[in-house]
C-alpha cells in the first residue's frame, strides 16, 4: 500500500528566505500531486508531476520529481507572507487511489 510522508510537518520561516518541503513515497506512484490548503478552505491544485525528472514552476514555487528516489520536493524561493498555508503532496497507487501526506503547515513571518 502506498504511503506518503512529508517533512517537515511544521515550518516557520522569515520572508525572503528559501526553503524546501520533502515528500517521500513508499511504492511506485504514477504521478505526484501538490496541493495548497488555506484555513477553512478546500485544496487548490498546484502541480501535477508525471515523470521522472519533471520540474514545474509557478511564481515562487517549484516542484520536482525523482521517481528513482521516490522523492518529490516543493521549493519556495524568497518566501512572502501570502504563501502561508498548508501544503500537501499526494501519490497515486496502481488502483488510482490518491494517497495524501499529512501536510506541511507553513507559516511565513513578515
Amino acid at each position, binding site marked *: 500500500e502506498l504511503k506518503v510522508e512529508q517533512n517537515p510537518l511544521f515550518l516557520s520561516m522569515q520572508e525572503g528566505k528559501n526553503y524546501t518541503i520533502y515528500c517521500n513515497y513508499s511504492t511506485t506512484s504514477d504521478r505526484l*500531486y501538490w*496541493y495548497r490548503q488555506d484555513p477553512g478552505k478546500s485544496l487548490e491544485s498546484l502541480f501535477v508531476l508525471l515523470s521522472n525528472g519533471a520540474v514545474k514552476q509557478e511564481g515562487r514555487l517549484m516542484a520536482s520529481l525523482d521517481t528513482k528516489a521516490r522523492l518529490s520536493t516543493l521549493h519556495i524561493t524568497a518566501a512572502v507572507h501570502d504563501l502561508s498555508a498548508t501544503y500537501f503532496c499526494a501519490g497515486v497507487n496502481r488502483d488510482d*487511489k490518491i494517497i495524501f501526506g499529512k501536510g506541511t503547515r507553513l507559516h511565513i513571518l513578515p
Partner: protein
Amino acid sequence: EAGVVQSPRYKIIEKKQPVAFWCNPISGHNTLYWYRQNLGQGPELLIRYENEEAVDDSQLPKDRFSAERLKGVDSTLKIQPAELGDSAVYLCASAGNTEAFFGQGTRLTVV
C-alpha cells in the same frame, strides 16, 4: 468552467441523526472521489467511482456510510446514524486524465 460543487457547505446535526452530502463533479470527469479530512490531517479516501461504479470502497465504514453515483455524474454520500466521531470536512474530488480537483467541502459537526 465550473469546478466541483458541493452542498451543503456546513451542517450541524445531533448524533444518531442522518445526514447527506451532495457533489456535482466537473463535466466530463469520469472519476469521482469522496474524502474525509479531520482537523490538522490530510484527506483520507472513503470511496472512488469510475462512472457509476464504486471501484474502491474499502475505506468506507459500511455499517453507517453509503454512497451512490447515479448515471455516473452527481454523487451523494450519506451517514446514518451519525456519531460524534464523524465530525470532519467531507471533500469531493473529480478527475479527468491526470489532474484531480476538489470541491469546497462540507463541514459536518455532530453534537
